[in-house]
């Protein structure tokens, strides 16, 4: 609640001082498990802003997916650690200008994954959710559950390394600093220990479930091509069926498109209706990018996205002799 009040206060101040024309934040959703994006342009509207465990939306996607709104306007945005990295990437990729954005960092303890909550309630509809900090209370018809926060956090949050905004103009509350998180890569190392055919079977089983709804792409802050390669029909790169080779190619290529740009906000995984572990490939690519080029997406506002940069002396053992 405290964060919410602080957030409202700073939105009001920014609007009153005319530092921003528009502010992007969250408000209580019409459904209890998801906050709704809120566009604030007057001081009164600021009172609707909230920040709690339901605020999973990465608001930076509006900069690239709703361009006209933001052309030449001063915009404020409330960001979690991952969102801030997306904003930095948008700036590096010249989608917005740094001087046109006011970044307000909020202290984030992770956001929930709807699917995990519904698994706890055995699929019964949740009518109310109260964020108590360490625990979360969910209420519905005939049940009242007290859940440990860690049980329902998005898997991206459980493995989060940078919970605070690394680039900001205002930071609300106490920063947690960098959290060394070994669990982030554990899954990958375990997976790599398997044989190639075991890995293939697992990958195939996982991605065969994909129904190609493209929710992962639509919700991704780094996916903003005007025409996505899967939507092109001349040449038509990807078949329209759910054949697993097509879906797998879609996911592999999408991963490579966001290589060095994925901030691991986990939005794709939370949006996936088939509960596919989409983050694993993203993390693997991020790991390769870090090991080979030393880059971590969206941390350095003076840097360059890894895949549009190069050094002449890079290791090239993988090239045939």
């Amino acid at each position, binding site marked *: 609640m405290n964060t919410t009040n602080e957030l409202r206060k700073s939105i009001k101040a920014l609007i009153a001082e005319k530092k921003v024309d528009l502010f992007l934040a969250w408000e209580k959703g019409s459904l209890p498990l998801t906050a709704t994006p809120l566009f604030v342009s007057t001081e009164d509207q600021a009172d609707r802003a909230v920040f709690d465990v339901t605020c999973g939306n990465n608001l930076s996607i509006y900069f690239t997916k709703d361009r006209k709104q933001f052309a030449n306007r001063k915009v404020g945005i409330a960001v979690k650690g991952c969102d801030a990295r997306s904003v930095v990437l948008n700036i590096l990729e010249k989608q917005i200008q740094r001087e046109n954005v006011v970044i307000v960092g909020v202290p984030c303890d992770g956001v929930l994954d709807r699917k995990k909550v519904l698994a706890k309630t055995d699929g019964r509809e949740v009518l109310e959710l109260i964020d108590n900090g360490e625990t979360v209370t969910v209420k519905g018809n005939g049940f009242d559950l007290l859940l440990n926060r860690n049980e329902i956090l998005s898997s991206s949050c459980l493995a989060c390394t940078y919970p605070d905004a690394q680039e900001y103009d205002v930071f609300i509350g106490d920063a947690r600093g960098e959290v060394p998180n070994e669990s982030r890569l554990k899954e990958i190392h375990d997976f790599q220990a398997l044989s190639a055919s075991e*890995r293939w079977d697992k990958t195939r089983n996982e991605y065969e479930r994909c129904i190609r709804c493209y929710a992962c792409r639509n919700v991704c802050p780094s996916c903003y091509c005007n025409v996505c390669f899967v939507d092109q029909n001349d040449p038509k790169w990807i078949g329209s069926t759910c054949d697993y080779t*097509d879906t797998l190619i879609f996911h592999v290529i999408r991963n490579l498109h966001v290589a060095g740009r994925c901030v691991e906000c986990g939005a794709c995984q939370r949006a996936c209706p088939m509960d596919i572990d989409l983050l694993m490939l993203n993390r693997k690519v991020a790991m390769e*990018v870090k090991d080979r080029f030393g880059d971590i997406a969206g941390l350095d506002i003076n840097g360059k996205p890894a895949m*549009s940069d190069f050094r002449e002396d890079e290791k090239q053992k*993988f090239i045939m002799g």
Partner: protein
Amino acid sequence: MSEWQPRILAILCNWCSYAGADLAGVSRMQYPPSIRVVRIPCSGRVDPLFIMKSLQSGFDGVLVSGCHPGDCHYISGNYVARRKFAVLKPLLEFIGLEPNRVQFSWISAGEGDRFAKVVTKITEDIRELGPATRLVKKT
């Protein structure tokens, strides 16, 4: 019965590897008739999607070859390509494709013998793996 001949897509840079292949040809060097060549303006033009798509359409392997680092006709195309391949290759291995199906090399216009060697090597590698099955789309 004759030995199984893999079908390998060779994506070659116009300025070096393609000329290298030409040199191998006019010098009458021997190498397996396993490759089908696509000429591209620069290895930087190679989208990983081309590689995935060729595997899906039934190629047993893919060879991408460009100019040696520092020799790019467009100054930096092969450096950018190298970054792409450096991420693509481990990712393909990670999802469980055989590591040698997709390979990269640098061959200059003067290295006809090297071209013949590279093609011989990748053909042997892929012959060992057998026909591609994993990403092939069955229609």
